[in-house]
């Protein structure tokens, strides 16, 4: 057959058949621009492409999967998700294209890091950022807050000493003089108060001295009448 004659007679087909050739993986690179030519609105392009795919599936014995969502609705969902994540105004053609990655990161999925389950959820990235910021602030606070303003930050040893100092009581506890059978006894006022409330612990032990800290057998109570 005369190929020149065929090419002339089929100019129209050659122009329109790019999508069909693309579906077959037979489209030359030079004709690729024609796929997205202005002749087809996106919906028309999608519908033609979908019908081509369906025809192939049916002819190959792969019945269309029942229960599926129509391509238009499915695509709308994908577009909506992409737009929501890219934060741009709605519109099917305004989605930010995926950014190219460095060659060192361009690993096939089998070797590269699998995407995390929460990658798609922006709020987790926000939470991670806030947590990182809080950690930095906490460390900064502890480092900067340990030294008085205008003074040098003490070294580790000095810090320990500073920490230990507040442990000592700032004020000596109040004491009281209590008259007992053995004479006057100086007691911590708080201890005396405790013993007054719980007299059974305030009896004399075998050591003949107040020993409230011992669990002895004595019992000091009012005599029974």
């Amino acid at each position: 057959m005369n190929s020149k004659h065929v090419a002339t007679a089929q100019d129209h087909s050659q122009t329109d058949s790019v999508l069909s050739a693309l579906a077959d993986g037979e489209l030359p690179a030079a004709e690729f621009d024609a796929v997205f030519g202005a002749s087809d609105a996106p919906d028309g392009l999608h519908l033609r492409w979908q019908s081509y795919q369906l025809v192939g599936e049916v002819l190959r014995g792969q019945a269309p999967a029942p229960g599926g969502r129509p391509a238009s609705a499915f695509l709308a969902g994908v577009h909506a998700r992409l737009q929501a994540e890219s934060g741009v105004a709605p519109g099917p053609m305004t989605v930010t294209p995926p950014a190219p990655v460095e060659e060192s990161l361009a690993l096939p999925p089998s070797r590269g890091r699998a995407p995390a389950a929460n990658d798609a959820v922006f709020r987790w990235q926000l939470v991670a950022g806030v947590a990182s910021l809080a950690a930095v602030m906490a460390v900064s606070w502890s480092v900067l807050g340990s030294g008085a303003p205008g003074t040098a930050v003490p070294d580790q040893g000095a810090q320990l000493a500073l920490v230990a100092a507040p442990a000592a009581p700032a004020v000596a506890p109040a004491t009281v003089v209590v008259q007992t059978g053995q004479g006057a006894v100086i007691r911590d006022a708080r201890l005396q108060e405790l013993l007054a409330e719980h007299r059974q612990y305030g009896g004399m032990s075998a050591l003949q001295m107040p020993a409230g800290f011992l669990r002895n057998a004595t019992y000091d109570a009012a005599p029974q009448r």
Partner: protein
Amino acid sequence: MNPDDHTAPPPPDSDAMLVQRTLAGELRAFDLLVIKYQRRVERLIGRMVRDVDLVQDIAQETFIRAYRALAQFRGDAQFYTWLYRIAVNTAKKQLMELKRDPLVFQSQLKSAEDDETSAPERELNAGVADTETPEAVLASKEIAEAVNAAMEALPEELRMAITLREIDGLSYEDIAQALECPIGTVRSRIFRAREAISARIKPMLERQTGKRW
């Protein structure tokens, strides 16, 4: 390029070209990838998940992840093989999170991981019986019947061309040799056959917008 030139280099991988176009900012190229593989991904996920709505969500999430990771696709493997891994990983993670029907998940997981190299091909013929509804089965059957009826009505030369392509999987060059015609003629015949068949099913696809099928 002259389509009749038998010495021309083989055409580039269509999927890889669509990926390149997407990376260049042409979202319609990604749309074509989504439409091309939507049902296949749904069939795959349908083997792992019973809930049809969850199948849809996971399929959608699969394409979202694929879009984000598209720059990492270097064409070492087929695009669908790459997409298949994303779909399986997405389904696994989704099921882990939801802890839905772990028994089914485990059994399906095992079958999907037995042989990962052949799994994409095995799932081709797998159905999604659990997700079928009478209405969906009917719609699917109508499409299949319309395609077959349109095939019967095609002129012999068109039917032969598309049969050799779609059923026998021959390249344009092989079909041209078999039919003793230029490659351009093969391409035109296949296109005309597709258009004739598509004319029968397009109304069904348009009518089903917003419904499941």
